[in-house]
């Protein structure tokens, strides 16, 4: 993983979030408080704005800085969760190599673990973790096989998509949608959707760069 890729990913994510405005907004309006798009927009803009500060950093330092920045700009539930993700990923990236996809997968998994801890949540609770956990698992599994780069990223996109869709039929037990009980059924979780969008965007970028 190179810092340059991180910066390109940040720019692409910002565009992808902006392109998902109406979907993210209406999902959080339906089962949350309607601010998830605004939060994600503010966060991704803040990262793109610090592009020049990040450019000269090592990938792990850049990830750490991104985490800190998200922590102080997003707020809400997604702020500390995404911040925890990046800071944990940074920590692993610093400790071990992330030149191989396996190394990146391990860092990603560490990030997801941090989200689980911070959110005291797991798969099946109708949160972003319903996307993050299956993707992390698939990423680690596939990088341990001889699957091609293309196969891996395509599979991650599929996993993200499936995870996102899986939240539709769940009752939420964490986050704001948990207050809704049965009424949350039939609605996709906004955080799951934004994570799926971000993961798909990064996968596409990685496939392009091939």
């Amino acid at each position, binding site marked *: 993983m190179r810092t340059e890729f991180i910066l390109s990913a940040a720019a692409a994510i910002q565009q992808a979030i902006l392109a998902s405005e109406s979907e993210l*907004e209406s999902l959080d*309006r339906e*089962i*949350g*408080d*309607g*601010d998830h*798009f*605004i*939060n994600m927009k*503010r966060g991704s803009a803040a990262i793109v704005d610090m592009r020049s500060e990040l450019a000269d950093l090592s990938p792990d330092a850049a990830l750490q800085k991104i985490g800190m920045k998200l*922590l*102080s*700009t*997003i*707020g*809400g*539930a*997604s*702020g*500390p*969760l995404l*911040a*925890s993700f990046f800071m944990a990923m940074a920590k692993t990236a610093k400790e071990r190599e992330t030149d191989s996809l396996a190394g990146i997968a391990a860092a990603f998994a560490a990030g997801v673990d941090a989200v689980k801890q*911070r*959110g005291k949540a797991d798969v099946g609770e109708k949160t972003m973790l319903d996307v993050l956990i299956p993707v992390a698992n698939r990423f680690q599994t596939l990088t341990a096989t001889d699957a091609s780069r293309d196969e891996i990223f395509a599979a991650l996109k599929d996993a993200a998509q499936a995870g996102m869709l899986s939240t539709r039929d769940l009752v939420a*037990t*964490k*986050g*704001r949608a*948990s*207050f*809704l*009980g049965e*009424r949350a059924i039939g609605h996709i979780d906004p955080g799951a959707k934004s994570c799926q969008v971000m993961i798909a965007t990064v996968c596409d970028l990685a496939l392009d760069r091939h």
Partner: protein
Amino acid sequence: MKKFVNKVDDMLVESLSGFAAAHRDLVALHLDPNYLTRAQKPQNKVALISGGGSGHEPLHAGFIGYGMLDAACPGHVFTSPSPDQMLAAAEAVDMGKGVLFIVKNYAGDVMNFEMASEMLAGENATVLTSDDVAVINSTYTTGRRGVAGTVIVEKCVGSLAETGADLATCKALGDKVNQRTGSMGVALTSCTVPAAGRATFDIGDNELEMGVGIHGEPGRRREAMREADAIVGDMVAAILQDFERSDHKPAKGQEILLLVNGFGGTPLMELYLLFNSAAKVLEGHGLIISRSLVGNYVTSLEMAGASITVCLLDDEIKRHWDSPVHTPALRWGR
């Protein structure tokens, strides 16, 4: 959306600046990270810090001052503030007796305050408020939301802290008041988050949302509009049922504080009508309304609607409720 606003992105800071200017005898505003403190720093007491998304004014900054909070951290509208704000606020107001965070129980607020608490060098503790009985409590979920009862917690703990009580004692009182407090809200219209520019939810001309949250989150159920007494009857019943399931079932003759809180868009005339209606039902259950508060204290921008809060008083809570307070939004005794 029609709002008094220049640029939506500047709205929060402009509003905070106006607040600080209008109350400069009481509060001071610090920007970037954003937090507010008392104008004069007191001495030798536990520092009380609250905070949360904006849009609930006067909560929390309106409760900074003698007998209540030492600082407040305002997030974006309906979005929890971030840990850097809490850390800066804690640094500014810690008097060496520790910091008590008073946090409404929402995943975002809890996690942000939790991270601040972990990062904070000094001694600190947290009271989570969770008085909203609309959400049936259950151990494996996020639990109940913190709503209007938060004001009572902040007032009582604020009073105790002023006496020089230590951190653990302050936290214990906060937890106790929270446990003895139940709230239920109902919305007649939605609010509009300025940055979103459109109503958070759609609601028909003849509908109400029973159990709505203070961010416009859906509640227990969508219902047909009914007369006030019927609505209040259901709200009070929900609160009393919740107490029945708790460790402190109110006996006949139990003194209570009755708070009728407007969500921002309901005329005072209607809030007093709700108070009249709620008082009758509660007195019918043998409860004694010995303290009362009616007004817009924990709002949801311009939402039409109101919540009813019942706090089961004891001598300690009563004493701390009655003690002098001097903040922009709540003032008595000095």
